[in-house]
Structure formats: structure tokens, C-alpha cells
């Protein structure tokens, strides 16, 4: 029966295995970080970090290094700039994100153009913007694991203060918590998660994996801890199923399937009766 859904060679293919491993790590990190992204209302900031990460991904191609290095360097830099412009004030946040986003993406357009001129690999643009996990190099896995552990470690360390700051900055400040520092550290975790997500499903779609499973999880549970676990599981499910469907489709992009599955899950969760009150 399995043969009917899974094309021959799926379980033995090493690009598929690598994609599944990287995808799982990325989905867990994205789910964990993403729950706070949704709680804090920073989806737009996440999207901007991903888009700007495209600048890094495309310059990494020019420099001949792995795109993840580029994604990471650029999205962390962009996060730092947004923090400096004043992303923590809601209005400042919106404006800062918009400005950094515009500038970054303009640069990415140039770099992607240069990629296609010098590299002559027409696939670079698609890979950077929309991802191609089957084309990952095995050497990327250790870096993915280290960056993933770093992001998860940050969230674990910040968990309670971050939750309090995200729910009510007034309450957090009254308890003597450094609200701005916590916000800045969270932004770092967000930049890492976005960079990881970008290597898997592409820079532009990276927020889908970050926000989609998290937003779905928030519909399903009333507890922050459970929401994080659920978001991670939903993300891994979407990525793995997406990889399977892409493999079966002989060439359709993985990111298309992942993003579609995430969207379906979210819509389905909205259709469920609210889990607000009651037990």
C-alpha cells in the first residue's frame, strides 16, 4: 500500500533524507520561535528578515560559500538595524521594518541579477527565493543543527521573561525586567529561525513556516508550552509531507507543497470550535 503513495526510491534517496533531516530541525525551530512571533505580532518583521536574507543568500552564491551563511549573516544584521531604528515601539516597529525591507530587497534584486550573469546557473534565483531542499549540500547539516540549537537555546533561556514581556511590557517593566534587551535577543532568535527556514523553503516563503504552524497551534491549545510543541509537530508534518509530495510530483517545488499544507492546516484549525473557555 505504501508503494501507491510513495514513489520508488523515496526512502533510499540521500537528497531526500538530507532534506527531511534539515527540514525537521528547521520546522521545530520555526515552530518554537514562531509562537512568540505570533504572540508579539512580529510576522511582518519575520517576513522582512527573510526577504533581506535573500541579499545574503545571493551574495553567498557570488562569493561561493553556502547560502545559509549568507542568509544568517544578513538576517542577523537586518535584525540589529531594525532594533537600532526602534522596532520595539509598535509604530517605530512598522516603519523600521518597512524601511529596512525596501532597502534590503532592492539590493537583493541587484545581487540576484549578478548571480545570473556571473554564475550562469539560472537556478540561483529560484533556489534563494523559493528554496530547493533536494539540492542541499550534506555539509549544511552541522551548521543547521548548531544554529537551530542556538535559536532554541535562546528561546528556552528567555521563555518566561519573554512571555511576560510579550503579554504586557508594563507588567514586565514593573518586575524590573529589561524589556528592550529581551526584545532584542528575541529578534536574534527570530533572525536565526528565518535564515534556517530560508534554506529549506526559500527566503520569500520562510515566514510561512514560521507563522503558519504557530498560528495553527494557537487555535488548538490554550497553553504556551503546548502551543510550541504543537507548532513544531505541525511544521515537521508539513515539511515531511511536502517533501514526499514534491518527490512524487517529479519536480514541483517542495516549498509549494509545504506552504499549501500549512495553509490548509491553518484554515482547518479556524474551522474547529474555539478552544477558548472551558476545560
Amino acid at each position, binding site marked *: 500500500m505504501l508503494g501507491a503513495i510513495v514513489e520508488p526510491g523515496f526512502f533510499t534517496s540521500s537528497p531526500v533524507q538530507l532534506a527531511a533531516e534539515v527540514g525537521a530541525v528547521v520546522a521545530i525551530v520555526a515552530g518554537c520561535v514562531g509562537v512568540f512571533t505570533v504572540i508579539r505580532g512580529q510576522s511582518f518583521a519575520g517576513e522582512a528578515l527573510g526577504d533581506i536574507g535573500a541579499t545574503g543568500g545571493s551574495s553567498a552564491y557570488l562569493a561561493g560559500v553556502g547560502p545559509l551563511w549568507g542568509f544568517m549573516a544578513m538576517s542577523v544584521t537586518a535584525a540589529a538595524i531594525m532594533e537600532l531604528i526602534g522596532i520595539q515601539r509598535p509604530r517605530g516597529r512598522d516603519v523600521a521594518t518597512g524601511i529596512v525591507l525596501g532597502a534590503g530587497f532592492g539590493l537583493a534584486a541587484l545581487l540576484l541579477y549578478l548571480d545570473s550573469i556571473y554564475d550562469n546557473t539560472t537556478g540561483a534565483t529560484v533556489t534563494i527565493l523559493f528554496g530547493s531542499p533536494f539540492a542541499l549540500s550534506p555539509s549544511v547539516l552541522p551548521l543547521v543543527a548548531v544554529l537551530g540549537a542556538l535559536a532554541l537555546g535562546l528561546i528556552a533561556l528567555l521563555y518566561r521573561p519573554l512571555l*511576560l514581556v510579550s503579554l*504586557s511590557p*508594563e507588567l514586565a517593566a514593573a*518586575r524590573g525586567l529589561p524589556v528592550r534587551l529581551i526584545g532584542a535577543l528575541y529578534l536574534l532568535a527570530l533572525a536565526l529561525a528565518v535564515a534556517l527556514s530560508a534554506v529549506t523553503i526559500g527566503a520569500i516563503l520562510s515566514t510561512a513556516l514560521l507563522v503558519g504552524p504557530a498560528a495553527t497551534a494557537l487555535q488548538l491549545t490554550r497553553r504556551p508550552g503546548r502551543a510550541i510543541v504543537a507548532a513544531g509537530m505541525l511544521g515537521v508534518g508539513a515539511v515531511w509531507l511536502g517533501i514526499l509530495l514534491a518527490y512524487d510530483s517529479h519536480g514541483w517545488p517542495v516549498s509549494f507543497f509545504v506552504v499549501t499544507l500549512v495553509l490548509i492546516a491553518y484554515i482547518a484549525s479556524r474551522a474547529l470550535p474555539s478552544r477558548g473557555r472551558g476545560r
Partner: protein
Amino acid sequence: MTADVLIPTPPEAASDALSVEGVTVRLGGRTVLDHVSFSVRAGEFTGLIGSNGAGKTTLFRVILGLESPLSGHVRVGSTRSARRPGADVGYVPQKFLLDPDMPVRGRDLIGLGLDGHRFGVPLPSRTRRERVEEMIEAVDARDFADARVGQLSGGEQQRILIAHALISGPRLLLLDEPLANLDLRAAQEVVRLLSRIASEQQIAVLISAHEMNPLLPVMDRIVYLAAGRAASGTVEEVVRSEVLSKLYGHHVDVLRVHGRVIVVAGTGHDEHTAPEIPSAVEIVE
């Protein structure tokens, strides 16, 4: 002016949970608080009354260590709150807006009052759970402690926030306009709850409000703020025409109607043009 030396609390002041001494705050060139002094005793319910812009929130920020006064100082319990009073002060902010789909139950928020400032993931602990349970009982939140905080009514949210503020065992509970968005019944319930907590747990409760009437039945003392200055004492001592006129710097009438107090204060800025007729009537009920 009191010299800037560290503590030793004189024994006679031992019951003062909070003392504010000569606090002056200037913000953006405006004197928001002008030598404000008063003290709040353990087990007492004190109302901080003043119209919008009288400096109530600024005063709270000073007490919380979030705003440094130009002069004067604040002491919480026996320790000078040089910077952050931390666990000694419980605080319920005025603004608390939470989306209905935030994945946080009342009991989660209460628990964060105990250890929200600690780093790391909370480990399941029986003492923590029991302490949260105790607080849920203390504020009568049993029926809604498991619902999402964002879906609770204003009065229910206040109870959860009060439990959040109380769980760390503070000596002083500050509440910024907790009745502002509540209907009369919910306001009365919150007031009764706070009064009970003050006397049972021997905690000083300082609650700010622009309207004093809902607090009249339970207020042990009042701190009346106007034009950045404060008068404090019992309601009978403070809410009198002579005292408030001096505070406002112009004539103020205090009317008592059916057990309610109405303060009629003209703005009095323009005394040559209309010395007798108030150019605006500000009613602090």
C-alpha cells in the same frame, strides 16, 4: 530635604509599607509632581485620587523605580527602593490588552507573577502549582482560571492580574485605575476583594482612580492629587473645601449628596476675567 543616607528605619515608621517623601518629577519641562509626600500603612486601603493628568501614573512609575524623581525619595517597606523594588511591590497596570487567541490561561499568567522574571523554562513543581491554586482561591477565580485571559471580561481579568501581583507576596499592591473600564457591579466586587486582601494579608493597597465614590466605603486613607501636589489623610480630613482649595490653588466646593462626594473645581487660571464663575467645571465624583 532628607539626606541621601541608607535606610535604618525608625521603629515608629515600621508599619509604613510605603513612604513617599518630597518627590518632585519634571517631564518635558513640566512639573508633574511637586514635593509629594505621604505614607501608606500595611493592612490599609488607600485611594490615590486625581483627575486625568494629575500625575497618578507618574507617581506609580516612581514607586516602581521606572522613573527617577528630581528630588525626594520613595521607600518601600524598610528598604529604600533605589531602583527596582521587585518582589516587594505588586503592580496591576491600567493598560492590559490581550488578543482572545493568545495561548495563555489565567493560571499561566498568575504563575508568571511568581517566576516570570526568572530565566529558563519552568519545571513542573508542586509548590508552584499549589501557590497558583491558592491565589486562584484568594481572588475567587476558580470558574475562569483555565480560560484564555484574552477572552475574560474586564472584571475577571482584573482578578487574574491581582492574583499575578499578589503571588510573589508583596508588602504593597499598586493598582493603576483598575475600575476605569468596569461596570458598577464588577467595580464593587473588585473593590471588596481588594479591601479583604488588604486586611487579611496585611498588605498595603494603593489604588488610583479618577472617581472616589466607588472607593468611599472601603478607603482607610486618601491621597488627593491635583496640580502635581498631594494632600493625604482620612477622607474626612482631606475631602474638604479648605484643603482642596489650597491644593488646587483656587476655590473648590465639596458637596455631599446621598453619601456621594462631588468636588466642583473651577480651573481658575484666568482670575481677572471671571473671578467668580468657573471657566470650566471639573467634577470629580
